[in-house]
């Protein structure tokens, strides 16, 4: 009797899965995730949304991920999510003059799809992603810096560099921050919420809303068409109200 129940359930689940669509990554979470973050909007799996990363996360605290939108016009914002992470949303960014490219490192609690979902001006979400295998523990382990006595002395410090090019330039920044997820016992969530790249006039070229799964002491790389605007600085804050503000080293 019990076995019959299971069989019926399986067939039923299979049918729902098929009806819910054709997630190329075959994730059990995709239907819920889509509902939660994209609602009723139109969603397409789009090869122009390219996510790069390792097949296997060697260091689940620092999994390098790149998001690149090649040939997709009028992108308003890009959400990055990891379906099976305890905290699904990794970050959201919008390029306002910088190229729609972002490289970062994140924590993975277990093997999971990592997806970029780009909303274009017509309200359609374009989704691409990869599956990254991981041994786990990335989100529930305390930050490494917590083990050192002086982490607060370097909090919010920024190291950076510009690689200028005629066609395209790169800006890389490294911010000192524990990025605590709140999932390690006794350590509350403490993470950077907002980062912007601004020029000397205060115009924003890139904005990122970051969440707990972004790695400790995060590194971000941004690309600009041609040479980057002069007088760039990185400005932001964390969820405790600490300010981040530093000129970008040319």
């Amino acid at each position: 009797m019990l076995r019959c129940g299971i069989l019926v359930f399986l067939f039923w689940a299979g049918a729902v899965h098929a009806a819910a669509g054709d997630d190329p990554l075959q994730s059990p979470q995709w239907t819920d995730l889509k509902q939660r973050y994209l609602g009723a909007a139109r969603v397409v799996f789009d090869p122009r949304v390219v996510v790069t990363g390792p097949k296997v996360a060697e260091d689940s605290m620092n999994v390098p991920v790149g998001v690149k939108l090649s040939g997709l016009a009028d992108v308003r914002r890009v959400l990055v999510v990891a379906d099976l992470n305890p905290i699904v949303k990794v970050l959201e960014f919008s390029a306002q003059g910088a190229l729609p490219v972002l490289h970062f490192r994140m924590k993975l609690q277990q093997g999971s799809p990592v997806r970029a979902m780009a909303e274009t001006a017509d309200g359609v979400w374009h989704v691409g992603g990869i599956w990254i295998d991981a041994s786990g523990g990335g989100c529930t382990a305390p930050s490494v810096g917590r083990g050192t006595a002086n982490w607060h002395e370097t909090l919010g410090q920024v190291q950076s560099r510009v690689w200028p090019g005629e066609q395209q330039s790169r800006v890389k920044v490294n911010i000192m921050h524990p990025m605590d997820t709140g999932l390690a016992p006794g350590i509350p969530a403490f993470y950077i919420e907002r980062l912007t790249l601004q020029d000397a006039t205060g115009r924003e070229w890139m904005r990122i809303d970051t969440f707990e799964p972004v790695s400790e002491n995060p590194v971000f790389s941004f690309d600009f068409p041609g040479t980057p605007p002069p007088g760039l600085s990185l400005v932001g804050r964390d969820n405790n109200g600490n300010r981040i503000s530093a000129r970008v080293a040319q």
Partner: protein
Amino acid sequence: MSWRCGCRAAGLLLTVLLCGLLPGAAVASDDLDYGLTPRKVADDTWVLIGKTEDFNRSNGGNIVNTAFIVTTAGVVVIDSGPSRRYAQQMRRAIARVTEKPVIRVFNTHHHPDHFLGNQAFAGIPTSALAATIAGQKEEGGAFTDNVYRLSGDWIKGTEPVPAGEALRPGVQSIGGHELELISLSGHTAGDLVVLDRSTGVLFAGDLVFYQRAPTTPHASIAQWLAALDRLAAVPYRLLVPGHGDPVGDGRAIEQTRRYLVWLEDALRRAAERGDEMSELFGLAIPAEFAAIPLAREEFARSVAHLYRRYESETLRRLR
């Protein structure tokens, strides 16, 4: 896409049926045989050659070379393998060669494939460099979990047992064999090399890989290259690498050295170009290394282990 869902549902169905009908269908773990076959490489000296693969569920972690020397005083074991089961089977393999008891176990370094068999040598003096013992204590638990995840039932019942004695480098005479214990580092913080002066066999541990890409989770490439210089100057007749076939000449040291020089140069140059870690996984690997087993996989791992150091040298702080 729907066929895929159909297949998946059918697969689940089959699993449920099998589990329901055949509760004992799982492979009995007694059947897990590493098939260890000692290869005699010199007088009194046998080597168990592992596969040049990564840990998986079919090799059970038999990816490492272990060895034993049958002296007149008893058997000296060099590295105990990846699991309790491996070491139990290693002891049976030794017993097929000699009736003499095992009297000493050396661990060349603290990586799991080289010491998780210690448990099966309980009561026998086991020694390693102090840095190795510290690493075994600190990381043994996490290593065991990870190896279990990768190789499954083969690892069942394995507990990390650190070596009990910190050894002093120098020459020890055991049962007619003069063993020179050389303390080096670079692959890890403590890399023991054993030169049997009586036979000319050099047990190089993981300072030397041959036809298997080197691994770098605890590596300092500068120290590793210095260690290889030292090894190249040792007069040996046969070199037993930690992974890959033994060789009678310098080619294994040379291959490891050339790979490490390339790896460091490739990572440093990428960092100076401003490359991101996620852009490096497709980096071209030179032809001389590309065909070596696990070259692509180990390069990706090395990016995770080493790239931040080179990258942080390129960044500057402004207020």
